[in-house]
């Protein structure tokens, strides 16, 4: 199994990432995104970041996962290359996981969209430990900058025990 491959797209970056589990597919999607920017084999595992997310569907969780990583990349000026992802389907009695301050404020500000959470709806939770290091311009060369994760032709497909995600990045 190839962890990811890039597909032809005139203006942007399109990839398919695979995994024998959802967790592996989430990790490989993240790797595909960072590898589009820089050679991720040059990224050392020097620091660890923790990410916790919750979303109402698997698709939106993947979108938020990749968007969260891009956000961290931009504010921490760090590159990531190892992804230890844990996913769980949120049950009705589970407490909403603790979130970083910024996330909390954002959800409050964006208000009405959060209505479904915590009321027993079928949601997904993600906890991840992400390994990487701060950008070092002497060792990390960028071939392109990913601006954002788009939802155009965004899909997750399961065939047997193989999960595939298709994502287009705005560059």
């Amino acid at each position, binding site marked *: 199994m190839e962890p990811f491959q*890039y597909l032809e797209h005139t203006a942007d970056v399109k990839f398919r990432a695979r995994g024998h589990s959802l967790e592996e597919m989430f990790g490989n999607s993240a790797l595909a995104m960072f590898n589009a920017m820089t050679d991720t084999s040059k990224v050392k595992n020097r620091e660890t970041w923790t990410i916790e997310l919750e979303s109402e569907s698997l698709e939106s969780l993947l979108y938020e996962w990749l968007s969260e990583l891009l956000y961290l990349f931009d504010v921490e000026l760090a590159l990531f290359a190892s992804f230890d992802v844990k996913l769980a389907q949120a049950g009705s009695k589970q407490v909403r996981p603790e979130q970083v301050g910024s996330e909390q404020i954002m959800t409050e500000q964006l208000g009405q969209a959060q209505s479904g959470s915590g009321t027993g709806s079928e949601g997904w939770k993600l906890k991840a430990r992400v390994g990487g290091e701060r950008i070092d311009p002497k060792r990390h060369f960028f071939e392109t900058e990913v601006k954002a994760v788009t939802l*155009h032709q*965004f899909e997750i497909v399961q065939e047997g025990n193989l999960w595939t995600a298709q994502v287009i990045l705005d560059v």
Partner: protein
Amino acid sequence: MLNKVDDYIYEVPQDRQKGMRVPGRIFISDTLVDKIEQGTIDQVANVATLPGIVKYSMAMPDAHLGYGFPIGGVAAFREDEGVISPGGVGFDINCGVRLLRTELKAGQVTPIISNLVEDLFHDIPSGVGAKSRLRISDHELEQVFTQGAGWAVDAGFGVKEDLEHCEENGCLKGADPKHVSLKARKRGRPQLGTLGSGNHFLEIQRVDEILDQDLAKKFGLFEGQITVMIHCGSRGAGHQICTDHLTVLNKAVQKYKISLPDKQLACAPIGTPEAENYFGAMVSAANYAWANRQIISHWTREVFQRYFGDIKMDLVYDVAHNVAKIEEHEVDGSKERLYVHRKGATRAFGPGRPEIPKAYRDAGQPVLIPGSMGTASYVLCGSEGAMELTFGSACHGAGRIMSRTQAKKTYSGLDVKDSLSKRGIKVMATNPKMLAEEAPEVYKPSSEVVDVVHNLGIARKVAKLMPLGVSKG
């Protein structure tokens, strides 16, 4: 699949795809139409399914495959039944172009072009992870969101006249930073006053050819003159605002029972909290982008003054090419307030519109079309045809024809740099490898694109500008 309805006008029939509310219109030449991808036409058709769309889902001659809307897409929506969609604006909100004119002639600049480009590259941070020289507070960032370029001028970056020569005077009304997340602020604060990367650039140019003497005079342009073009947008702040609200609007699509062919077209009916919150945040990002270009202009002037003393560098104009705005247009004989989305398209208002600065009002709005690296850029002037055909819109650039993957396989960044250097164009970039993706050959020739809008009477050609030096991220 496409029906030619007139010279340079091709129609995407309304029965092409289920749910289309209006036909599509692609403004393109017979030669360029052969190069347009199926996916781009699909995207024009997808936009035509959005509620409240007026007349046509349009695409400019530089149209190419995007996400949601095609790049080069224009669509207007009725206030009472229409929608607002971030897919019609893009992630880089108010990505745009501005042009500064100097009193210098090419001969004064070419001998020191390397020094100038090196200084610009050094003084104006660009590339991935670049931090601004500017340190602004949370309070100042809030003012940037609400006041745009006006904040920058008040803070000492430029002069009042700059604002007069800026689309919307560098500040779109309706900013509502309450709906700008803390994440967007965290990304935006350290990046105000940075160029970014990708196709963004800062270019020293020579006016190569005057194509309309009267209009060129009006815009203060003459042959052999040195100009500076700045192409950039709202950086991480804009990207984050679009990302945040896309999530919200995706849920709104279900709430308001809108059926969409593509999730990236997520939208909400005008007047609903989801749509208005996005609009207020999007306007904040647009204002951030105008402040950004204003600050970069000021630093550009400082570099030139280092070499040429106290020279004048007036702003010709500044245009947004990724934005949604409320504008008045004539529809079937009566004036209507419309939400016009332009994604990779430039406003090109014809003569007489009150939005155009006084100095240009009887001529039309300057329309700035950046070339790809190493190729010509154009200054056009908005015409009556744009008001009739395209809700006052024209193309925004050359339009990609080769993917980034293919470009990297075909060209090497260093070769691109060398071949430009042989043509007398000095290029500086953070990573030469990046230049392969932006090789001149991966874009349609901008002259062909510009000819279409000229011949259609959307915007008239005024001047052709050729690069002498380029600073890229």
